[in-house]
């Protein structure tokens, strides 16, 4: 396996708060990597740094061997590295199909091509992916009228529509009906296996992430606490303390 995302010595602070302190991580291509840590430990901040949402104070971030820490959000997205939002962002006024069609991979689209209507093949792909996440029946509903969990599923389907190489998911199971979590985990695994998308997942639910990830990184107070295979991390005294201490 080769590294697809390499994070080296990344530091990011907001005023006096050091949200990420000298973090180094490697996300292997084709795998599922987990990122855990108590609330406020700096997980979302790290994702924001990776996708170019804000500049970092120090360090280096590489995607497929290319330095991306100075690139703007859109350029990184067009390289094939996407993220979903913890607070879920979809286009509320459009219906689900429209949300999907606007999520086509724009790295391939020239301005001239944007002056055409969506092809039948694109519509079919959109419908297929909505089916994949279980939203086909709701496809003509306004996305804003869906439940929070359904919006998360839609956001996931939109990301898949974009054909990314790497996908960063910020708490994909948060707010989802517990009875539906197993189905979602199954879909995440299938997206990884069948579509070949490398996943980097922030997850609060320990059971879920232990079941999915090959490697897990654990943060606390912006610093790296532990990393390794799920079993190692799960039994790490410092991790257990951090989680117990946080609650």
């Amino acid at each position: 396996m080769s590294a697809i995302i390499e994070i080296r010595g990344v530091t990011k602070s907001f005023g006096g708060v050091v949200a990420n302190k000298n973090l180094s991580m490697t996300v292997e291509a084709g795998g599922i990597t987990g990122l855990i840590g108590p609330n406020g430990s700096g997980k979302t901040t790290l994702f924001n740094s990776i996708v170019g949402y804000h500049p970092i104070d120090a360090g280096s971030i590489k995607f497929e061997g290319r330095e991306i820490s100075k690139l703007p959000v859109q350029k990184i997205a067009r390289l094939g590295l996407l993220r979903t939002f913890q607070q879920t962002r979809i286009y509320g006024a459009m219906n689900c199909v429209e949300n999907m069609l606007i999520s086509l991979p724009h790295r391939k689209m020239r301005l001239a091509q944007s002056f055409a209507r969506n092809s039948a093949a694109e519509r079919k792909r959109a419908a297929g992916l909505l089916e994949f996440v279980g939203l086909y029946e709701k496809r003509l509903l306004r996305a804003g009228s869906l439940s929070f969990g359904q919006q998360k599923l839609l956001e996931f389907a939109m990301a898949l529509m974009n054909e990314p190489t790497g996908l960063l998911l910020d708490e994909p199971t948060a707010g989802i009906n517990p009875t539906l979590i197993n189905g979602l985990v199954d879909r995440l695994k299938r997206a990884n296996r069948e579509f070949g998308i490398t996943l980097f997942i922030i997850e609060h639910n320990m059971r879920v992430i232990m079941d999915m990830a090959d490697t897990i990184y654990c943060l606390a107070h912006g610093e790296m606490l532990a990393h390794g295979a799920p079993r190692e991390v799960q039994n790490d005294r410092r991790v257990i303390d951090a989680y117990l201490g946080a609650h």
Partner: protein
Amino acid sequence: MSGARKSAGMPIEARRIALYLVLIALMLAAPFLFPGFRTQLAALWLMIVVALAWDMTGGQMGYNSLGNVFFYGTGMYVAAVITIALAYDVGEYTSAAGGGIHAFTDAQYFAGMALGIIGAGVFCAVCALLIGYITFGLRGPYFAIGTLGVAIAAGELVSNWEWVGGGQGISLPVYPGDLETGKVVFYFLFAAAGIALFVLLRWLYTTRFGAAMNAVRDDEEKAEAMGLHTLRYKLAAWSIAAFFVGAAGAISAFQLIHFEPLETAYQTINLGIFMVVCVLLGGKGTLWGPVVGAVLFHVFKEVTWNYLLGWQWVALGALIVVTVVYFQEGVMGYLMRRKPEWFGIRVGREAE
């Protein structure tokens, strides 16, 4: 269920075609049915053009420009300069204004008109790219004020620029030929611009480009995170809008014969605001909203200007307040909510 939907779809399509045919016939016949109102009817088409253009960024993309009148004024000046330059030295022509007599042949006049309208459109489209490159970094009210600043500054600069006549403004030759024929010609020029823009937008809003415009409006940050070329779409859309507003300004320049920078060309508080009111009244972010709004607004304005003299600005202010406070969705927004079946919109619940 799907069968019922189909049979309900047909009459809508037929009714729509019938509606378009009636409107085209009305458009063609209007200046002859109401010969006394040719200039007002031409002004109505001008309002339709600038309202449709304003809605491209304001309604469809969520970028409320208060500076679109910049393109109107700039279009006027570009057309005038092109026309004059075809026959005379522009500096000499403007400094002699009033005293000197400058004759134009018919060929010079019409060549100037054709080149002036196209040239104004192209020049303004390029201006939109340059100004947009800077101002599209601004969001919300900052964009509105930033673009307004551009229009105000341009008016001031031009009024101090003697080469184009300074604060006195600039004069163009009178339409060569019968006065009434001239009015009909200007009516059809504005109407052609309005219909061309309407047809263009009717198509554009069904393309991926149209969807991207709405994505920018609904959640620009999300659109960026998905890799959309947001700046590219904003610039392209504003540039198309600027082309039409600039061309409309050029037509106005020939229609008005004489114009000056602050009150006519860069008239930020008249046309600059009217175009926004038209769109709000008719319904932001809809294809027909700007058209419906322009018609209602224009009728309201003509009636109050003729019958409420002295109070017309008060009436207009009241209209704006009522629209903004109580009727933000506009006529089309209201109709789409209350009568979705008129628009072939399937109510979401049906799909559940």
